[in-house]
């Protein structure tokens, strides 16, 4: 089972997310993560979907997506060198005594502390999934109170289209 990252350019219409995610659910395709936001063009949004499956499944996903009238372009980003990033906010227990250690980790990962409470910190980390997994693992021993990850957004490098 391969992991694929696909980018789907869609009309920014009510119900589009439902159409796309419904298609995945109904046809038994996996969604590891899905992110949606504005694109470079007014009226169009870009969805980045991380999914798993063999080459045939990937081909079917792309063909079935194209059948949706609101889908304008489907690109398999993982077919080319790409940049994929997700963002996580991690609220971790941080009694004053533990803070220097935590800050050490945050610095090594080039993450940032974005909020400080009486006995907790919110750490913001941006990177590929592996980096965020690693960060979470390192912070886990301190006690993670809340974790929120965005799922990946991605694009191909350079001028490959």
């Amino acid at each position, binding site marked *: 089972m391969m992991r694929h990252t696909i980018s789907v350019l869609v*009309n920014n219409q009510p*119900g589009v997310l439902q159409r796309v995610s419904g298609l995945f659910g109904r046809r038994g395709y996996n969604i590891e993560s899905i992110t949606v936001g504005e694109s470079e063009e007014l009226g169009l949004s870009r969805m980045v979907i991380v999914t798993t499956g063999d080459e045939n499944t990937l081909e079917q996903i792309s*063909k079935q997506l*194209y059948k949706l*009238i609101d889908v304008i372009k489907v690109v398999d980003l993982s077919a080319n060198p790409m940049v994929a990033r997700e963002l996580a906010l991690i609220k971790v227990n941080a009694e004053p005594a533990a803070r220097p250690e935590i800050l050490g980790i945050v610095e090594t990962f080039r993450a940032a502390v974005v909020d400080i409470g009486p006995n907790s910190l919110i750490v913001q980390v941006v990177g590929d999934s592996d980096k965020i997994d690693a960060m979470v693992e390192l912070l886990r021993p301190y006690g993670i109170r809340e974790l929120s990850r965005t799922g990946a957004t991605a694009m191909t490098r350079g001028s490959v289209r």
Partner: protein
Amino acid sequence: MNVETQQPKRSKEELMEKLRQPDHITGSEILLRSLLLEGVDCVFGYPGGAVLYIYDAMHGFSDFNHLLTRHEQGAIHAADGYARSTGKVGVCIATSGPGATNLVTGIATAYMDSVPLVVITGNVATNFIGTDAFQEADITGITMPITKHSYLVRDVNDLPRIIHEAFHIANSGRKGPVLIDIPKDVSAQKTIFEPVTGVSIRGYNPTVQPNKLQVDKLLKAIEEAERPVIIAGGGVVYADASEELIEFVNKTRIPITTTLLGLSGFPSAHELWLGMPGMHGTYAANTAIQNADLIISIGSRFDDRVTMRLDGFAPNVKKIAHIDVDPAEIGKNVKTDIPVVGDVKAVLEFANTKAKPAKSEAWIAQVQKNAAEFPLRYNDNNDELKPQFVIEMISETTGGEAIVTTDVGQHQMWAAQFYRFKNPRSLVTSGGLGTMGFGFPSAIGAQLGNPDKLVVSINGDGGVQMCAQELAICAINNIPVKVVIINNQVLGMVRQWQEIIYENRYSHIDLAGSPDFVKLAEAYGVKGLRATTKEEARKAWKEAMETPGPVVIDFVVPKGENVFPMVKAGDTISDMLMGDAE
């Protein structure tokens, strides 16, 4: 028919001229005008609170014909039968909530068989949407998986464009139902209406012309093949490509089998036609597929009723070519060596310019020998009235010229097996979804679309009871559909499975308590006839054919007759049960 007496009072040109003038009108009037501009001549529907403005606009309106069915399911199947038999877009209207949800089975039926429909539903006013208001249902959400596309109209100014787009989407590329949900306030609001001309939908450009190199590959494969077979499906009919297909078969000399939906797309009388493949396919068709070295699917999607168990499908094939307008069908179920994306008609037109015969004469002799040795047959030794006899009788007396609609079950398979089709669009049947209740109302639509043709609706005694209320429509509009009931007193196809697969454990298949169908017809003011012997059958059918209006003919046949050949679900198509012929 009443339809003819309701001719528009003004000429078509005058009307169109008037419609093209900009005007300050309501959403409802925009809808009606847009439908007329799309060439709609008949609409099936059922009113209710959310569409009252639309129905108000239709008051005294006679520029198209509106038929009030007795159930929304009747309306949508009628629209479907109209579309399948004419090639035009079928239109139906229902109110919000229960009206809209009553359409769901019909929308799914049309979606599975790629039938172009524009389905108009009302919805609660925009400020009520999402509040669980009275008769609110999220019909665009409910139908998302069973429509080609759908619209919820939030602004009356979008309405002309949306209707125009809906017709374009429904009837281009791979066809299908498109839903337009119109909130009540939108149908009431006024705006300046200017007809839309031309559509451009970014991201929607179905491929019509095929890649020529791919077609060349196909032609090369044909020249190299020794045992080629064509599997032709509904796509041939929908693309109006029958003539091109006949030419292609004549030029390449390839034996052909047609799926249930493809049946009318190729004449049953052609010497290279092998019948239908699959679960109830002929011995000749199924063995040809199992021995073929080249399979060419034309507008057919390798449905599991055709392929049966996939790992045993076509074990000797060297190459599979697949012609389809929907690229997503190619490679979905079977691995394809030569994909050809395009409109079937365009593909065949191009292929016909260069097609040469395959080296198939020995192969043709072999498949024809199979066809002669194992024809479709049934035990017809005594005077008992057999369902197959009824179908053969209808086929012979109509000369294959009627439009036949069927319901779902054994009678459907017998109609597929024993009716000899001549003309494209002369079979209207629910293939993909297998919807009981479809047969009779779809005949009403087919008749309205083809006022000069004989329309025969073949039903089981089970399915006909799912939409029998539409007899009212036939009666009051004098729609001369001949409603055949193959009355075996049971849910025959279910009984057959219970007999063969569940070891005669007959569970809930007895239809005792069914009405006297003759009296039922008469209760609606429709002529009813009954036959229980061959002799009576011939007489009743003759009378039905000579009767100008609608007729219900109850052919009482013994229960227990089974459809053969049969391939059990889970078996490969080589494992045919031949029944009496074994």
